[in-house]
């Protein structure tokens, strides 16, 4: 019998082992739910699968009485749009400021402490300011995401730019690069896959700020819906929404990883990908 540290699961047992915790949690939930429903058929806390099915059908396939929209999809679209804007703007800021800070010592001296300071501001604390300045519309929600994650991405990319071997920076100059073409042809392309990594890491934060902003002031959105139906203890809606958000987060992460592998095949192979 080999030692535990030397026993590796094959593909199928790895899959089964991976599923096991999910199945366990599901089984525990179903048991608890069945027990409560047996005691009180109108129990709202742990609805059964029939209730989930009905709620999902109602949210996803039946037009809402008030607006005529299919709420789940309208909420999803609204949230994803905000998320995309927030991530996109943060990525752009992160890339520009991160590269400039990482490559140009004068810029770093001027901006780096400022960015470090900004990143210490708790984003939720400035949310009221955003609502006051930008109103309750889309801008303030996107702004919250940006304020929350852009400083992190900036600092990450700055660090990644500083990690590029100085040999490469010197070499490019001996080949005739000026500061601009050095950034354009040497630094930027090497930081793009690292930007995708940084985005993946900040996805969790982005969702957090999105849902928080939607919970406080919105008229649609996944976070808005959850906090709205909370008033009616509608666990049959909340739990599927949470699962749906989790699935979306997983899908975005997976898509970013795939994009990184496809668009930057050199990255995984070189030292940069290994670190």
């Amino acid at each position, binding site marked *: 019998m080999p030692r535990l540290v030397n026993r590796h699961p094959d593909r199928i047992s790895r899959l089964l082992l991976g599923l096991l915790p999910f199945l366990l949690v599901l089984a525990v939930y179903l048991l608890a739910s069945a027990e409560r429903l047996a005691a009180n058929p109108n129990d709202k806390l742990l609805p059964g699968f029939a209730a989930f099915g009905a709620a999902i059908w109602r949210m996803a396939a039946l037009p809402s009485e008030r607006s005529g929209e299919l709420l789940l999809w309208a909420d999803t679209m609204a949230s994803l749009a905000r998320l995309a804007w927030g991530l996109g703007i943060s990525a752009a800021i992160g890339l520009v400021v991160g590269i400039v800070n990482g490559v140009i010592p004068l810029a770093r001296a001027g901006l780096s402490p400022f960015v470090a300071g900004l990143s210490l501001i708790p984003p939720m604390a400035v949310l009221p300011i955003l609502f006051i300045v930008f109103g309750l519309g889309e801008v303030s929600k996107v702004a919250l995401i940006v304020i929350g994650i852009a400083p992190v991405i900036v600092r990450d990319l700055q660090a990644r730019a500083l990690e590029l071997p100085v040999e490469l920076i010197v*070499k490019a100059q001996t080949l005739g690069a000026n500061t601009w073409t050095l950034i354009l042809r040497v630094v930027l392309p090497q930081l793009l896959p690292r930007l995708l990594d940084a985005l993946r890491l900040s996805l969790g934060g982005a969702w957090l700020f999105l849902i928080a902003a939607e919970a406080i002031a919105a008229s649609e959105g996944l976070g808005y819906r959850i906090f709205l139906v909370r008033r009616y203890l509608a666990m049959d809606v909340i739990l599927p929404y949470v699962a749906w958000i989790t699935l979306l987060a997983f899908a975005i992460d997976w898509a970013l990883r795939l994009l990184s592998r496809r668009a930057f095949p050199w990255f995984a192979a070189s030292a940069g990908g290994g670190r």
Partner: protein
Amino acid sequence: MSRVTLRNVWRTYGEQVVLERLNLVVEAGEFVTIVGASGCGKTTFLRMLLGQETPSRGLLLLDGTPLAAEPGPERGIVFQRYSVFPHLTVQDNVLLALELARAPLLGRLFGRARRAAREQAAAMLDAVGLGAFATRYPAALSGGQQQRLAIAQSLVNAPRVLLLDEPFGALDPGIRADMHALIRQVWKASGVTVFMITHDLPEAFALGTRVLVFDKPRVDPQAPQAYGATITYDIPLRGRGPVAVPAELVRKLTPVAEAPAHA
């Protein structure tokens, strides 16, 4: 292809004198090899020639004019590692050199200029024996192939001076012999002035037209940092045929020559 002159060049770090009293005239087209104990300042010397560092005192001249204090296209460099761009294929690595030199606005060539550059890059790759690997990324090359690429990339713009810091230090002996043939061939073809640091004495004597030995002529046991290294031997080899490595040097540098290559 250019004459390099050093006039009383010193380099110090705070109290520590690393290099002192360097006086040297290197004619265009010479192949200068540099040997010396580890830590004696060979890399520092090369970095000054490169413009990555400035002398604390003295003058560095290229064809009579002071060297620019930052790296530039008149001086090519091959480091022991990290000399090629990991995000570009082999051919694009060489193409990049041409694009950076010719397109200061975008760093990219288009149309006919690009086609011409591609052809030039392909010819350069053939010359260093990498023609068959043009579409690979550097991560998929061996160490020797990466150094071939680095050399091709450094020479494609025809710099006046080529600097090599232990370029073959990490390669195994069989491949080194191939690399010697290659570097000798490209040096002869281009007429570039070469400075090459090596830890391998036979390599220094086999390749160079001139061997410089760096060493500390004065040592103060109370203050080891008070005196720096300088050029203690300057051995011309050109036109003398194969020269045996002087026994005295072997004795002095053997611990170094036999030490495993390091980064």
